[in-house]
């Protein structure tokens, strides 16, 4: 970027504080950055580090208790910190727009989409009828299917991806010079995320808008941004060109973040994930020295007492660290746990089947229609094995978990066998030991733990119920379990609300292990957690598995996580298993066309350019599945395969294409292999 241009946005020593209970707590500390016209600048960091605050500050939109306590926000050379409400509104109307994390709630539920978009044009002085015309054109620009119909719809009638396209259309309607995107694809399916990111990239090429891109997802940032800034505890700790930062991270926090992600190729059998020790600081913590010192393995006395300044690493690449030269080679931070003695006993999981499900189907009735959400699913799970379930939302992952646990009953013919014993279809007809032997860990521990009980009580109750222990014994057992989950003893008597997200999830895992389970179903257990916490939880799960030979059914939309933790993987599409095999096979190919598309849509953290295999069209409704192979209308490999007629008329069977590798596809695996090489 040329430096002579006036930057579109410049934050200069920006300080923002929130007033909480009468005390100002600093959330942004001396943040300086600038974004040139046409440039995409990414801000990364874990939750609570101030990313969104920075984004909203740039919009001059802070919560009621937030205020700018120092520094300046300069938009196109003009300081906008002190301008009045009318001028701010004028800026938002014509120059700065925003795209939000939850597109569905960002749209007004009672106003038609067309009118909501047209409103932006009307604000800029366009007549009502022209505004409607322009609104429809803007929907065409964001490549939404059937824009004319979307105009007349309401927000709840749109899918997440469509809603985000509408929000983007609305943001671009004013031809902004700066677009602030706050986690725009978080919560969207991988394939939808990829489409939205493609769209943003294209629009940027056409419009030359400068972008401030906020994300916790390093892969997304890597693929979208020219430059990156890393925020920690409200301070910018490192900044530079994207490729440079990812290649040569020079702040220990950046290095730590990159190391704790389960990257391609890592697997629990050979690699342990790095974590960042300690926890992020509470809002508004005051610092003498470096904000990261308490969690940094390189920190010395100087770091504790003296505030480091930005040092130049390589031209524009700067880092706020005294030891930036040592950062990339800093010692790995691996939580060590000694389970060697037990590990020997169970180290090789045998091939005996622990859980077997066959011909499981589930039909829900929705508005009088029968919807087949699960269609004839069968698989086995061995002792100490992890089976990963992947697929887009609506593919039936969670319903399978519910069927296994007996929370919903399968249709006639579906059988679940645990350790050779048939399980009753519903939970209330299973005996206590069956209930204890299959447990679940949910995505959101906030909602899964009773807020009124202490942590010990939550666990001891479960022990009492599932193991039949006396009250005293179950409390002792609860302490053992919590300690085993590395929940510090000082926290055993607190209530869940006082714990961080990661600790809550540890408590939830302890609860699942209260009944000495043989199988634990993990439904997106790390999706709500930051990457460093996620790594620690994944390590914990792997340890528990090695120690007790527990089997896991692991549901996640994060393919990197599934790949790391799973022994075998089932890929689901529209309630059907389309591919099944070892983690190795499923991720290295040959792939089922759906798996191929899914894998290619994940933004890569290593920056390698990979051709995206798009899935065209929308996920069909399970109430009216396409004839033939359910994937055929969207299949990236159907055209030209020579099997088109077969694909469109006959549903393929799940067949073994290689030893232990199953696929539901008419195209012979040799052909797929050739196409995919």
């Amino acid at each position, binding site marked *: 970027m040329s430096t002579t241009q006036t930057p579109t946005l410049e934050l200069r020593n920006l300080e923002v504080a929130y007033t909480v209970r009468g005390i100002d707590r600093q959330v942004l500390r001396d943040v300086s950055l600038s974004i040139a016209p046409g440039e995409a600048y990414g801000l990364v960091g874990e939750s609570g580090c101030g990313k969104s605050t920075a984004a909203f500050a740039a*919009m001059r*939109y802070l919560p009621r208790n937030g205020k700018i306590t120092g520094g300046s926000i300069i938009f196109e050379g003009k300081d906008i910190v002190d301008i009045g*409400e*009318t001028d701010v*509104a*004028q*800026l*938002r*109307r*014509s120059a700065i*727009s*925003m795209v*939000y994390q*939850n597109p569905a*709630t*960002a*749209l*007004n*539920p*009672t*106003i038609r989409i067309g009118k909501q978009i047209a*409103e*932006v044009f009307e*604000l800029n002085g366009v007549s009502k009828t022209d505004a409607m015309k322009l609104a429809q054109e803007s929907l065409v620009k964001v490549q939404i299917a059937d824009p004319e119909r979307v105009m007349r719809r*309401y*927000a*709840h*009638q749109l899918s997440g991806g469509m809603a985000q396209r509408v*929000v983007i259309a*609305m943001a671009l309607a*004013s031809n902004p010079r700066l677009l602030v995107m706050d986690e725009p694809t978080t919560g969207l399916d991988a394939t939808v995320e990829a489409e939205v990111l493609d769209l943003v990239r294209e629009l940027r090429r056409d419009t030359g808008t400068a972008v401030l891109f906020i994300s916790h997802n390093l892969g997304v940032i890597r693929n979208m941004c020219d430059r990156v800034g890393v925020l920690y505890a409200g301070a910018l700790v490192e900044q530079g060109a994207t490729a440079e930062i990812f290649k040569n991270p020079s702040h220990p926090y950046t290095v730590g973040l990159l190391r704790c992600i389960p990257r391609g190729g890592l697997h629990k059998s050979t690699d342990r994930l790095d974590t960042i020790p300690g926890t992020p600081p509470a809002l508004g913590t005051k610092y003498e020295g470096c904000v990261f010192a308490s969690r940094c393995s390189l920190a010395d006395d100087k770091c504790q007492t003296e505030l480091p300044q930005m040092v130049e690493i390589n031209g524009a690449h700067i880092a706020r660290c005294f030891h930036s030269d040592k950062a990339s080679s800093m010692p790995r931070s691996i939580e060590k746990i000694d389970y060697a003695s037990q590990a020997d006993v169970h180290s090789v999981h045998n091939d005996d089947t622990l859980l077997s499900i066959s011909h499981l189907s589930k039909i829900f009735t929705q*508005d009088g229609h029968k919807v087949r959400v699960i269609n004839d699913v069968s698989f086995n799970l061995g002792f100490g094995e992890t089976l990963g379930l992947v697929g887009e939302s609506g593919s039936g992952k969670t319903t399978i978990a519910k069927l296994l646990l007996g929370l919903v009953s399968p249709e006639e013919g579906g059988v679940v066998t645990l350790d050779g014993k048939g399980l009753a279809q519903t939970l209330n007809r299973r005996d206590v030991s069956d209930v204890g032997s299959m447990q679940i860990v949910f995505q959101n521990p906030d909602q899964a733990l009773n807020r009124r009980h202490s942590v010990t009580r939550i666990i001891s109750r479960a022990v009492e119920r599932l193991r039949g222990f006396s009250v005293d014994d179950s409390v002792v057992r609860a302490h053992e379990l919590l300690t085993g989950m590395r929940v510090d003893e000082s926290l055993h008597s607190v209530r869940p609300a006082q714990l961080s997200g990661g600790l809550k999830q540890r408590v939830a895992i302890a609860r699942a292990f209260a009944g000495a389970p043989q199988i634990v179903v993990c439904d997106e257990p790390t999706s709500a957690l930051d990457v460093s916490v996620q790594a620690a939880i994944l390590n914990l799960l792997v340890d528990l598995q090695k120690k007790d030979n527990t089997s896991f059914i692991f549901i996640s939309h994060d393919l990197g996580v599934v790949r790391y933790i799973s022994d075998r993987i089932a890929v689901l599409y529209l309630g059907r298993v389309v591919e099944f095999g070892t983690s190795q096979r499923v991720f290295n190919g040959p792939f089922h066309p759906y798996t191929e598309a899914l894998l290619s849509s994940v933004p890569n953290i290593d920056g390698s350019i990979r051709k995206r295999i798009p899935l065209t069209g929308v996920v069909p409704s399970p109430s009216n599945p396409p004839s033939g192979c359910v994937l055929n209308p969207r299949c990236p490999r159907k055209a030209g395969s020579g099997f088109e007629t077969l694909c469109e008329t006959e549903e393929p069977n799940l067949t073994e294409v290689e030893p232990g590798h199953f696929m539901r596809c008419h195209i012979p695996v040799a052909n797929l292999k050739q196409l995919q090489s």
Partner: protein
Amino acid sequence: MLRFIAKRIGLSLVTLFIVSMIVFIMMSIMPGDLAKQTLGRDATPEAYEIWNKEKGLDKPLVVQYCVWIGGVMTGDLGMSFQYEQPVSEILGPAASKSAQLAIVALILIAPISILGGVIAAMNRGKRIDRVLTVGGLSAAVIPEFVWSVVLILVFGVAIRVFPVSAFPDEENPNIINSIYHLLLPSIALLFVLFGYISRITRAGVIEALDSDYMRTAVLKGLSRKTAVFRHVLRNALLPTIAVIATQVPYLAGGLIAIERVFNYPGFGNILMDAVVARDFSLLQTAVFLVGLVIICFQLIADVLFAVLNPRIRQRVTE
């Protein structure tokens, strides 16, 4: 949508049937021998029998119920024991009087309470919010007949700007005069309902103000005022409409105390008289009609809510 309305009407009919049963059973287990009361203690047993036969009270309860409900359905509300007049002739004019009071009260109460709630929400936590919220609640805990007496004493007796009776004396009062007479009781009702309705409105508006779509509207560049008008009110007032609709039957179904204090010949007054006189045939039908009004307005509220809220409307249409 039509299916939804049909379903709702069906459910309302079921409710109505249960109401009619309860009303009837309650009337029949009430103590006191009607014949004795009407004819006096000195009448002969034969006279009692003849009276009972005449009124149909000698028949089994099931038959009595069927006769009554059959009559109600065909528009024959029976005869009042007390006035020896068709019930419809007594209740008809009273119902129209009560409806007039309800309409005037509603026109006064709804906009003022909603406005109060909106103002409180927009100034959340500030003094005006506290005044409106605390004031509204304080006013609501004082019963309407106390307010009525206070209002009469202040504006009817001391200052003499409003008449003390809610009913004009003249033969054929014009509309303006009628409304003028109804203002004081309406103000008493406003005091009672303001706190309730404005609090619901305030909650709805605050929820909408804090919503993501309000943030979107502001970040589009709308001024706060325009954003509130275009994006907040419609969403915020949905629950309020339902609340107001449920208050209508309270207003229309017999404001016994207010009608007594203001000497207004409405439904409430009739009900009270019927209770005192143990005029069961009148009372039973009147109570049933109050139930009918309540159920009707609940139905209207539900349908209105569905029409205004696209989310429910769609669920309903599909």
